[in-house]
């Protein structure tokens, strides 16, 4: 890959994604980059915004290599600030809006954030007022020491993922993101003629999508509510060519009872979690559009897209994109990809490291292959089908829940001796979190449930809170390592033993 430095008054770097935005602004100065409700901004205006934001960020004390949290809703400002921080060779760490204060504090500490930028004024926070911004931003400087393992090559840390069910913080470099957007576009084929209706949270989806759209001069239409009417109106009003959403949105769209179509779309992509076959069929029947499933891995990028056979191979995530290679590792070491096994990929744009604990990618990869933790197989045409996961991550309508994080919060309660969090299927959300809990003290179960719910509500985003709490006498563990076995523990106390206090 080759990216040269962006020309800013503040910083010089060897490789920087902001340079791509500058090139787009040169090539498509008057093209609308982002539409956000009644606001819109062209690429030349966006680039000017980015450049002018670097000064107040610098004055606030942000420097090269600093890890900066961005806690903003989807907006022009979110994109502008991200590129402005990249111009300064700072590292962007998205903080999802739905996280609770204890979760944010954990993230700030674990990732050694030097500042958090948000719309919320907090004590000591410095306001940044920009004429093109939707409002004042506030920069709260933190006292975390700089992590010297994170260099100016770093662009982005996604506080997520890891194959063991623990949050690790995935570090991506400018070069790595550049490589993965080039690879992704061999399947997405985004050009300046495209208009993308965007309904996903930028805190969860940015590096391989928004950056790609901006690098190609496409127009991004932000739709900040998920309802069918809003999405249909946004597509038709803007003659959008691409819809990028999750099955939850497609479920709402499929249930729309009007006769309105999405005629301008050339593709509807579904990501983050498996698209149920029945939903894909319902959407196809309603809109005559086959939803193309996208298989993305934060550690590697978008590796498969089912654009060619979305209608007749509904459950498949497609063939690997040209730059990626796949192998399926089965228990009997059979090399055939047609056999069910663990899905591994290799290709460009690998993550640089996990941040917590700091582990270089090269120490995670196995001979250059990344083990996704997903189970699947390929058909005779090389189309990949994902059948399950061998890790414990729970996917609630595309939002990842890490059992270890939820168990840690549950275990903070004096009344909880031990807890185990695992997934169960749900008709609308795909999966939900369920907890098995061993009580440390005898308590009426309703009272225990209320205590647990109150504690979780204070400490966890809602989608992470177990939808069902079962009280059990013990949690199963592996005999040798003593690790919790994540799954339903039989002998649920609600049924196993009478409790007169219920």
């Amino acid at each position, binding site marked *: 890959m080759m990216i040269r430095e962006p020309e800013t008054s503040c910083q010089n770097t060897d490789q920087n994604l902001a340079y791509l935005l500058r090139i787009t602004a040169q090539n498509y100065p008057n093209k609308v980059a982002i539409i956000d409700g009644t606001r819109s901004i062209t690429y030349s205006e966006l680039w000017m915004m980015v450049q002018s934001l670097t000064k107040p960020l610098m004055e606030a004390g942000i420097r090269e290599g600093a890890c900066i949290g961005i806690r903003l*809703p*989807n907006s022009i400002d979110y994109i502008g600030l991200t590129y402005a921080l990249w111009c300064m060779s700072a590292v962007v760490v998205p903080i*999802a*809006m*739905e996280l609770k204060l204890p979760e944010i504090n954990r993230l700030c500490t674990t990732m050694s954030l030097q500042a958090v930028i948000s719309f*919320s004024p907090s004590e000591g926070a410095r306001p940044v007022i920009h004429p093109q911004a939707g409002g004042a931003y506030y920069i709260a400087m933190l006292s975390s020491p700089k992590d010297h393992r994170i260099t100016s090559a770093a662009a982005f840390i996604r506080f997520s993922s890891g194959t063991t069910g623990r949050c690790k913080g995935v570090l991506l470099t400018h070069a790595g993101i550049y490589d993965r957007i080039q690879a992704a576009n061999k399947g997405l084929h985004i050009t300046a003629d495209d208009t993308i209706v965007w*309904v*996903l*949270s930028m805190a969860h989806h940015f590096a391989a999508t928004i950056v790609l759209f901006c690098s190609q001069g496409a127009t991004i239409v932000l739709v*900040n*509510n*998920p*309802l*069918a*009417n*809003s999405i249909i109106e946004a597509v038709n009003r803007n003659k959008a060519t691409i819809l990028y959403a*999750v099955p*939850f*949105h497609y*479920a*709402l769209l*499929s*249930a729309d*009872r009007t006769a309105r179509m999405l005629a301008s779309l050339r593709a509807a992509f579904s990501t983050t979690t498996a698209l149920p076959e029945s939903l894909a069929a319902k959407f196809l029947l309603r809109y005559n559009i086959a939803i193309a499933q996208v298989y993305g891995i934060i550690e590697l990028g978008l590796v498969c897209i089912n654009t060619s056979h979305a209608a007749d191979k509904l459950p498949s995530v497609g063939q690997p994109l040209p730059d990626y290679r796949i192998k399926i590792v089965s228990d009997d070491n059979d090399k055939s990809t047609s056999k069910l096994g663990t899905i591994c990929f290799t290709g460009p744009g690998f993550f640089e490291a996990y941040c917590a604990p700091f582990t270089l990618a090269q120490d995670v990869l196995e001979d250059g292959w990344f083990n996704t933790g997903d189970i699947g197989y390929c058909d005779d045409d090389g189309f990949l089908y994902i059948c399950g996961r061998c890790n414990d991550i729970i996917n*609630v*309508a595309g*939002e990842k829940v890490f059992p270890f994080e939820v168990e840690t919060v549950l275990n903070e309660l004096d009344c909880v001796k031990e807890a185990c969090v695992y997934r169960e299927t749900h*008709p*609308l*959300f795909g999966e*939900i979190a369920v907890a098995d809990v061993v009580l440390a003290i005898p308590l009426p179960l309703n009272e225990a449930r209320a205590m647990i*719910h109150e504690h979780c*509500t204070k400490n966890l*985003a*809602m*989608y992470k*809170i177990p*939808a069902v709490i079962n009280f059990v006498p013990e949690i199963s563990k592996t005999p040798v390592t003593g690790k919790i076995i994540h799954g339903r523990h039989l002998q649920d106390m609600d049924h196993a033993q009478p409790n007169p206090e219920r």
Partner: protein
Amino acid sequence: MLADIEAEIVGYLHMVIFDPSVLIERDTDLLAAGLDSIALLNLLLFIEKQYGVCIPEETITEETIRNVKNIAALVYALMPPDLTVQS
């Protein structure tokens, strides 16, 4: 009962979904206040946990989700009859 549901949903939205500075009342326009995808997901999960009601996707429209009054009425309508007659 309906008033209780409204009060609980207002309390939930105020405590969990929206910034404390946002005033949420039973007829506040939630979409204008910024109810996004994840906020809606969280709200639906809350309703399911609190009332044992799974809202069908065909009823999730701008009209039903627009304010707490409409959401509570939908929840109430979907609750089993033996629960709705308590009060």
